[in-house]
């Protein structure tokens, strides 16, 4: 190395990788070589993780033969560049090493030397130390920042044909490790990096491996209280695959240096105060707050790493990054289920319901930020047949003769067990398309409650001499529900969330055209409609005074 002087050139003061060097003015005809920057620590298996080797050849116009090699234990393992460069004293030349050695495989974690040799009127030979490490994430666990603001989510099928409840693993919703018999958690068996796990987007079944649940690579959605901060406890990978195909340590900590991880998504940075990660260690990140509405938001998180000298100093980037895709569902309050019910189906909101709710809200133009908004979305989405949602859920039809059904029989709700086989409902209406009021009330009450609406009950009504109604899945208002002149209920089931003061009903609409006893009708959605009063449910739906009683939130199967 030939140092001509130490007069700094401000434009070339490079500090991005801890090897900032002053570039010196060269004499008019003598070759100079200055390393501008080489990362001290790098992981070429990261996305964009090629290692930039930056240097300056001087003086202007000189022609130099340049060789850049990577050495380990004094032996050359890779040739990065070999060719002729023309000197330009104010220009940094960058040559990237892809991290692979002469055999085409990624270099194993360990200590290396970057060597640059330039030859013109004389030989310049400079080196820089480089530690190859393997950085990556093997697991992520969603945590509540406070109690009761994060829940597991539930699937109800196992593959396409078997009913089975599965809750997303609270120990880690994102998991990306080697299967038994594989070499390492961070890499594939061929040494290439293990890719991030794609978000699991099926809403009915978790991923399977053969006939069993996939238990090594998955990426499940999370569920949080709306407006809360999502928190991820990240576990870093513990080993890598060597060129020899064996498991090796990931090469860090590097003596004298600290490494930390930083995360961000398009909504902002994720807060993390750890200064020194370790293999198999954990670090916790708090992300930008989730929306203050119930629904879904996707987060594409970019994970980067930085290093610095131990104990302080400026952080320098490890080239490259990792991208992971995450899905967050938000609910209004803690999910609520039938009192005393046990089973995995009660671990948290069902993915399919949270997703269906999101689609309904979008289609209806709703931004449900409170309990009324959730009820409005569920009732109107379930009923469909409006501007936003064209069809009822599962293409249900009210069970009446004009639709090919019979006399309003229950097809899903089990009164004796006070349970609703929601899994059969959502699996392409396995008990058929016909439903009655108890089916609707039990389905909607469970959906609404699991999205956080409190105090939901089924509200059972006695006999009703009906005015004009519009049944779910039927084409129009009728005053002849069961046939000419027959328009009454032996009972009716709706829902309430305030002890019957207001009621909701996804089974039918009342008529709000001012003449509720005659057709045609103007849709009167029953979303938290007062029970009593001139525009109340009882007045608009029945000629008689209707008796009432309550049924608790049903269990779910």
């Amino acid at each position, binding site marked *: 190395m030939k140092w001509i002087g130490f007069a700094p050139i401000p434009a070339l003061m490079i500090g991005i990788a801890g090897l900032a060097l002053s570039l010196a003015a060269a004499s008019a005809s003598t070759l100079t070589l200055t390393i501008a920057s080489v990362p001290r620590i790098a992981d070429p298996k990261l996305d964009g993780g090629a290692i930039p080797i930056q240097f300056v050849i001087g003086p202007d116009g000189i022609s130099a033969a340049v060789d850049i090699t990577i050495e380990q234990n004094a032996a050359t393992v890779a040739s990065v560049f070999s060719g002729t460069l023309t000197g330009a004293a104010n220009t940094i030349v960058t040559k990237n090493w892809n991290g692979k050695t002469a055999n085409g495989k990624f270099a194993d974690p360990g200590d290396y030397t970057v060597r640059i040799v330039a030859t013109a009127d004389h030989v310049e030979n400079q080196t820089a130390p480089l530690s190859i490490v393997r950085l990556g994430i093997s697991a992520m666990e969603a945590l509540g920042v406070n109690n009761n603001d994060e829940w597991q989510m539930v699937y109800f099928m*196992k593959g396409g044909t078997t009913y089975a409840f599965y809750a997303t693993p609270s120990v880690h919703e994102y998991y990306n490790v080697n299967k038994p018999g594989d070499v390492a958690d961070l890499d594939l068996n061929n040494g290439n990096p293990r890719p991030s796990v794609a978000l699991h987007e099926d809403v009915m079944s978790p991923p399977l491996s053969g006939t069993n649940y996939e238990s090594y690579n998955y990426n499940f959605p999370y569920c949080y209280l709306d407006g809360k901060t999502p928190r991820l406890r990240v576990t870093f990978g513990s080993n890598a695959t060597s060129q020899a195909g064996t498991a090796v340590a990931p090469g860090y900590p590097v003596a004298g240096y600290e490494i930390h991880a930083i995360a961000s998504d398009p909504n902002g940075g994720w807060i993390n105060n750890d200064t020194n990660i370790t293999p198999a260690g954990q670090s916790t990140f708090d992300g930008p707050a989730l929306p203050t509405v119930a629904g879904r938001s996707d987060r594409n998180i970019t994970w980067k790493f930085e290093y610095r000298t131990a104990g302080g100093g400026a952080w320098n980037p490890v080239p490259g990054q990792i991208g992971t895709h995450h899905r967050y569902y938000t609910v209004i309050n803690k999910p609520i289920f039938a009192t005393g019910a046990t089973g995995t189906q009660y671990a948290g909101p069902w993915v399919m319901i949270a997703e269906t709710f999101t689609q309904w809200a979008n289609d209806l133009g709703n931004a449900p930020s409170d309990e009324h908004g959730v009820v409005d979305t569920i009732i109107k989405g379930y009923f469909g047949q409006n501007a936003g949602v064209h069809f009822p859920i599962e293409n249900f039809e009210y069970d009446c003769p004009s639709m090919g059904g019979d006399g309003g029989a229950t097809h899903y709700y089990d009164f004796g067990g006070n349970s609703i086989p929601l899994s059969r409902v959502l699996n392409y209406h*396995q008990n058929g398309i016909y439903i009655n009021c108890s089916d609707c009330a039990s389905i909607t009450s469970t959906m609404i409650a699991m999205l956080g609406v409190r105090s939901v009950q089924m509200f059972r009504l006695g006999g009703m001499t009906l005015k004009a109604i519009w049944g779910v899945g039927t084409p129009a208002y009728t005053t002849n529900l069961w046939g000419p002149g027959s328009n009454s209920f032996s009972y009716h089931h709706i829902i309430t969330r305030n002890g019957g003061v207001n009621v909701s009903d996804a089974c039918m609409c009342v008529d709000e055209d001012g003449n509720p006893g005659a057709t045609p009708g103007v849709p009167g959605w029953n979303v938290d409609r007062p029970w009593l009063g001139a525009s109340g449910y009882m007045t608009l739906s029945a000629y008689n005074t209707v008796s009432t009683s309550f049924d608790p939130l049903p269990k779910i199967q």
Partner: protein
Amino acid sequence: MIINNKMRIQIFVLLAIALAPAAFAAQSASKPAASRPRDPQVAHAHDRYRSGDWRRGERKAGFDVGSLKIHNFDGSAVEVIGDNALARRFTATGAAKPLYLIESNVYEAVADAHEKLAEILAFVSSPGTLPTMRASGHDVGDIGYIGYSGAAPGRIAWLAFVRGNITVRVTNLQTSESPAIDAAAVAKLADNAILAAPTLLDTQSLPKPAIDNFTFDKNSVVAGKIVKINFSVSGVTGEPNIDWITGGTGMGYVERAATASGAPGNFELHATGAGAFELTARVTSPLGVSAEAKATIAIAAR
């Protein structure tokens, strides 16, 4: 968690005896309908349908809905839909969607079966009463009722009947189609299958499966790990259905271990969340009779 995946026990002796047994208790799975306080709406149905006049037939050992065969129809796997409750769907050969759904509930007492039928009738919204099967010309069960479809004259949308201590409901899932065999004929086949089952003496209880052994192989497990379940059943002819129902604050699921030969391996609990974990095994015989047992384990945080 309920795993209605028809996990089969074929070689019970393969299941090992517990080395470190956790809590184990066998209990009845049956929850007789007649033992609950009668709901006024259901009581009204009893009155409207004069349930006191319903014939009380002999108690039967169960209904093997899995053995039911319908000519030119393909039967699905049997689903356990509750304690002592099974369901099965039948699809016309070559058709895309099932046409009939058969649901059965088996009870200790005839009165419980009658109560179930009354509940079905009570929760029909139309104000009239449904015709009996016999009035409609169908000699099925001790008592039964029909819901006719509006799709075509005489087409049955659903029916429900009781034979002894067993309640059966048959639902036509495609009432817009003209079926090659109607729901009453399907019900007759089901009724015949029930009649073919052994009759129970007054002193005999339903033939419940016996859960001889149900323990975890350890008293505790760390979240994220797997623990073997020692499990064996007897007293069942044929292949029982096993459901695993989770409880407590811990989380996990049960699967059979994969084996190199492809044969079913041991049952295993995959612990996925820390806390006290209670697992209920519900075993349902092909006759639709369930038994339950519980075992507990502590799932520790990592």
